[in-house]
């Protein structure tokens, strides 16, 4: 049911893949070369006007994994996250160099609407629309032009189940989404994102506005969703990164300092700066 989507468009033809370039500071990606990466960042820089925000970042994210991006405030984590679905386009004066690919799609030249359907996003503060729970979940589908009520209902149910919210809201789908608790709202936002069947889900500190119980539920959910999606999550919380992610990237002042399997990065970081940061010497 979830695979038969009108959103699925024929993939654009692309030239034969160029020989893979070694990713900077990323020994893990080399080992996993047999599976093509879900996301590739290649020598990517971004500046707001003259202010550089990301400096020559390169990394590869394997599919069906959770990648955490950590670093102190203002280090460029959110900017990097927003580069994957080009949300940075909304800010005037943004310039980029280098390349980002989502599977075989070049993010820079992709149709931005198409890109954002393949790369979903969950924001820091739960941001449901002031509409009913049902209308929130099917919003993306409606924007795709899907009108069939039965189909919309089936997809809404599937998405809500997938986001572990169905049992709590099944009796009140027509009620306003704003009546839900913060944690429920965030899971609703995740369901809304799942409904358009993205390949990648970006999460920008998805639990930072929630209480510990709701946070735990979101973390559980992230681990569940890993089976079907590639997830990149920005977090302030290093314990959270350690709990939920397979790989962790440490950013500082717009530079990728270290990118490795989470266990290794937290127990035996190769860079002095990483060690200082995770042991709380700054940040």
């Amino acid at each position, binding site marked *: 049911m979830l695979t038969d989507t009108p959103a699925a468009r024929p993939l654009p033809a692309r030239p034969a893949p160029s020989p893979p370039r070694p990713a900077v500071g990323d020994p893990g990606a080399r080992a996993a070369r047999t599976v093509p990466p879900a996301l590739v960042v290649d020598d990517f820089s971004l500046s707001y006007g003259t202010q550089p925000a990301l400096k020559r970042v390169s990394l590869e994210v394997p599919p069906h994994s959770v990648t955490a991006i950590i670093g102190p405030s203002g280090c460029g984590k959110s900017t990097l996250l927003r580069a994957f679905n080009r949300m940075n386009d909304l800010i005037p004066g943004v310039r980029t160099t280098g390349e980002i690919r989502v599977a075989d799609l070049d993010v820079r030249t992709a149709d931005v609407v198409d890109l954002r359907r393949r790369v979903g996003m969950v924001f820091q*503060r739960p941001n449901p629309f*002031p509409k009913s729970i049902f209308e929130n979940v099917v919003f993306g589908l409606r924007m795709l032009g899907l009108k069939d009520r039965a189909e919309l209902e089936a997809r809404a149910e599937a998405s809500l189940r997938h986001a572990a919210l169905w049992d709590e809201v099944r009796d009140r789908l027509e009620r306003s989404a704003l009546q839900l608790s913060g944690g429920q709202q965030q899971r609703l936002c995740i369901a809304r994102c799942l409904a358009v069947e993205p390949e990648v889900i970006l999460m920008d500190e998805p639990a930072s506005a929630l209480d510990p119980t709701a946070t735990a539920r979101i973390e559980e959910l992230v681990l569940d969703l890993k089976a079907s999606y590639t997830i990149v999550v920005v977090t302030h919380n290093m314990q959270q990164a350690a709990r939920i992610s397979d790989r962790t990237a440490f950013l500082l002042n717009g530079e990728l300092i270290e990118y490795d399997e989470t266990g290794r990065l937290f127990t035996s970081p190769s860079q002095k700066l990483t060690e200082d940061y995770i042991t709380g010497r700054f940040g």
Partner: protein
Amino acid sequence: MTTEAVGTLLRPLTKTLGRDWSGKSLTWLTALAALLIVAMVAVILGQIAWFGAPTLTWEFLSTAPTQGMTAGGIFPAIFGTAVLVILMVVALVPFGVGAAIYLHEYARPDAWFTRAVRFSVNNLAGVPSIVFGLFGLGFFIQFLGRNIDRALGLDVVWGQPALIWAALTLALLNLPVVIVTSEEALRTVPREMREASLALGATRWQTIRNVLLPQAMPGILTGAILSVARGAGEVAPILFTGAAYYLPYLPGAPTDQFMELGYHIYVLSTQSPDIDATKPLLYGTVLVLLLLTMLFNLTAIVLRTRMRARLAGRG
């Protein structure tokens, strides 16, 4: 006089009588100023209601004036006012909201065109309404209307004062209000809403249509309310562009002239052959205009409150 100025004047007194006394007296002074407004409204409304109510019969509301406007009702004026305001809103809201969407969503803030638009909006808001009336006469009737007639080979159909030109003139007068309030309403929609929609793969226009406009609607409605209330009461812009002293028939086409309550009040109070006979009619007409304006406002306020409640997740 500002409270500061009052405070300065009272300072010597404060020294002798103590801080408490001056605080109290200031409270009384400001309360008096507030009371003055209430009193004025009460007197105006009270007098009009008192003298107007006896005139307010079904016959008065449903018949046309007779005997050189010294008897009969005001139905044509009520009808003309309603049609005028409806036409004005139909012309005004799409243009006003459209301009607001452009300014807020598409225009680059520092582009010369954007600045020119904002400059125009601000200055349009400061133009006296009689000037709008003259503009309507010159532009809509003399220029636009005459040229339509010429192009269609008609005698004088469009090139004369008419309902449509009066409505457009009024719309123009109210355009700044609607643009400013609509843009303000769009601005109050949280950035997260726009981002949520775009991140789901909605296009820019889909985001405007399905997320921004519904949430801005209460604010946009406020602008429309203000313009309707103002539109129903303005006389100067329609003076040269379509309002008639007296018509034996109701307007049936946009090119017809019409009677209007505000203008009818002016006529009754200045052009009457028999002032004593006209006076009750005058009070009645003023009362009807007031009630009509309040009714417009009330409807829109109720509508707005409901929308707000729905947006807030209640109801």
